[in-house]
């Protein structure tokens, strides 16, 4: 693997499969009484969050702690980060603290790229979501979730599996990362969106695109619903929330057209009633809660592979015997 994880495009198929296999090992740890490994003992992971995202930060924090890393949380709320102090100055501070990995969430597309390539820090940089660009660990956890559900009936891979990603592709870092990673893993991706919410140039992404949700989902093996912010109405991307839901929301009627094995996903946080109805989100097909669990395992795998080892996780040491370390 490369030293940084900035884009899903940084991962070769071998890299991505190694992450999935490692995550699988990490996930089995969750079933053990002591959920902690010494793999990153003495290493420091900084969560640098310029944008509020409790769920992603908690997921990375849990992942780092389960690998026995020291975790420092820098959060924009109530600190110098929200206004004034620059990304560069913050980076220099982190460098002085001896961070081994910086997990960065930033509202500006490319901020993790700048952090990694400007010579400000020597640590590994993990993109935890940048602007409307990418969110590679979300794509990895999504792929991991699909692989666990669809892999067993497909020779252990996602080759040829049809994945529908539905919603605000234009502003979605999740869609970009998923489109890249799922293609790397051999899946066939169809993006479904109103024409106003497709980025210019999407026809060069190597994916199928459609404006017609009903035509796409009966063939899909997984349907991923993207969050749609109501504010987009004010930008004129669609006329009303009701019209959006009617044309692009996943409700019980549409769910009935899915194949038996098809799973329903959502990166969260959901806007229930907008892109997905409660009965769908809470149905047997929904793997939304499992995505959260898998998020920790995948982020453990990413941190482990970036910081520690290139070894498969099977060679990981036994769990540590000191439970309950809350640093």
């Amino acid at each position, binding site marked *: 693997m490369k030293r940084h994880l900035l884009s899903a495009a940084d991962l070769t198929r071998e890299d991505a499969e190694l992450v999935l296999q490692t995550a699988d090992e990490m996930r089995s740890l969750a079933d053990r009484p002591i959920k902690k490994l010494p793999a990153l003992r003495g290493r420091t992971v900084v969560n640098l969050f310029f944008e509020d995202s409790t769920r992603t930060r908690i997921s990375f924090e849990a992942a780092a702690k389960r690998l026995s890393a020291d975790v420092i949380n820098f959060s924009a709320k109530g600190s110098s980060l929200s206004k004034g102090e620059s*990304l560069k100055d913050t980076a220099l501070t982190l460098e002085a603290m001896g961070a081994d990995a910086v997990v960065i969430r930033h509202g500006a597309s490319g901020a993790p790229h*700048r952090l990694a390539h400007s010579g400000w820090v020597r640590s590994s940089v993990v993109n935890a979501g940048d602007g409307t660009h990418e969110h590679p660990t979300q794509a990895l956890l999504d792929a991991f979730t699909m692989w666990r559900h669809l892999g067993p009936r497909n020779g252990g891979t996602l080759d040829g599996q049809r994945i529908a990603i539905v919603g605000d592709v234009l502003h979605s870092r999740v869609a970009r990362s998923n489109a890249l990673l799922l293609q790397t893993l051999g899946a066939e991706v169809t993006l479904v969106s109103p024409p106003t919410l497709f980025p210019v*140039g999407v026809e060069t992404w190597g994916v199928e695109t459609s404006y017609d949700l009903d035509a796409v989902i009966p063939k899909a093996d997984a349907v991923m619903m993207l969050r749609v912010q109501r504010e987009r109405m004010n930008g004129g991307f669609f006329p009303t929330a009701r019209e959006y839901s009617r044309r692009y929301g996943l409700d019980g009627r549409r769910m009935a057209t899915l194949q038996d094995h098809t799973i329903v996903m959502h990166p969260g946080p959901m806007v229930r009633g907008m892109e997905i109805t409660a009965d769908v989100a809470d149905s047997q097909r929904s793997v939304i809660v499992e995505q959260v669990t898998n998020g920790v395992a995948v982020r453990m795998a990413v941190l482990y592979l970036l910081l520690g080892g290139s070894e498969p996780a099977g060679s990981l040491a036994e769990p540590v015997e000191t439970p309950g370390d809350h640093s």
Partner: protein
Amino acid sequence: MTTYLLKNVSVLGGEPQDLVLKDGVVSTGSTTEGVEVIDATGLIALPGLVDLHTHLREPGREDAETVETGTHAAALGGFTAVHAMANTEPVADTAGVVEQVWRLGREAGYCDVFPVGAVTVGLAGERIAELGAMADSAARVRVFSDDGRCVSDPLLMRRALEYVKAFDGVIAQHAQEPRLTEGAQMNEGELSGRLGLAGWPAVAEEAIIARDCLLAAHVGSRLHVCHVSTAGSVEIVRQAKARGWNVTAEVTPHHLLLTDELAATYDPIYKVNPPLRSAADVEAVRAGLADGTIDIVATDHAPHPHEDKDCEWAAAAFGMLGLETALSVVQQTMVDTGLLDWAGVAERMSYAPARIGRLSDHGRALEDGAPANLVLFDPSVSRVIDSSETASLSRNTPYAGRELPGRVVATFLRGKATVLDGKLA
């Protein structure tokens, strides 16, 4: 005042000859008495370059550039006249501010500074500024622009175009439809979609240019289009000229050389407005400059302090330096490619911009009696650009580390050397 004898100089790339610079004027005869001889063998003499689009930042942002440092950079780039854009603090929207900038240029003495007046008060796009007072001031303003902002209100634009007819002025439009470019960060295309950077679509430039050409034709006024950057814009200007409309246009050196691919680095040294465009657009603006559709090269020299570029892309300022590298970029993109000869360069970087700005003592052919404003350029050498070597107070050159052809050897302003041996005199 020193009299210079330029031996074996190639005027506009022609046969070697001697030129004498005496008492501020050019003479083509030879003299040997009491002169300083410069061996100009292999050097090209061009009339002093005239930039129609320079940001000198003074007053207000003297941390980025001053009239003095900006004119030093101009002289080093071979310029003898620059037009200082109005987006200073305070805005150059009154006779007082334009006279201040004009005087600062005279005091610095390295390059004539012709202030551009704002079209609207405070660049706010609401009320026309006192254009007549600026025209009648000591600065004799003829070029008016809200550059950095577009005069997007069509009625206001119409009135401005009409009003400046009284003093033979021209409106230089920064063509950017504001609603189509809200939050825009880079050229809208395949790459902006991938990078997740908000797009600045070509149509936002082209729609304004088309509208302004129609307005200028309707009211019979002069329109100048700043920094044309797209193939579509070139085509619109070409059609306007074919209809005989009084429209001129400029292209920047960076739009002649650089493409939007550079945004993939997320390094905001490449962030500029209008944005770097596609390779096809670069081809089109080169062709437009070659066939005269685009009249001139203008630098849009835009200094910014380090901290405004040493950050994430979205937080960075738009703009790049251009004065000291303009002629080299034009050599690389237009001369070395065979698209222009040196006479064509003189037309596009001196004669034509001086005509558009209604300057009488700049942009003159190097003939007997002409003001001795000229540059000696060595096209045979090349140099690697080092951002720390610029005379500008700012360092935001997009060419750092690049090898560019040619070097300004000397610049003369009214017969006085402002640059000798490639250094400020």
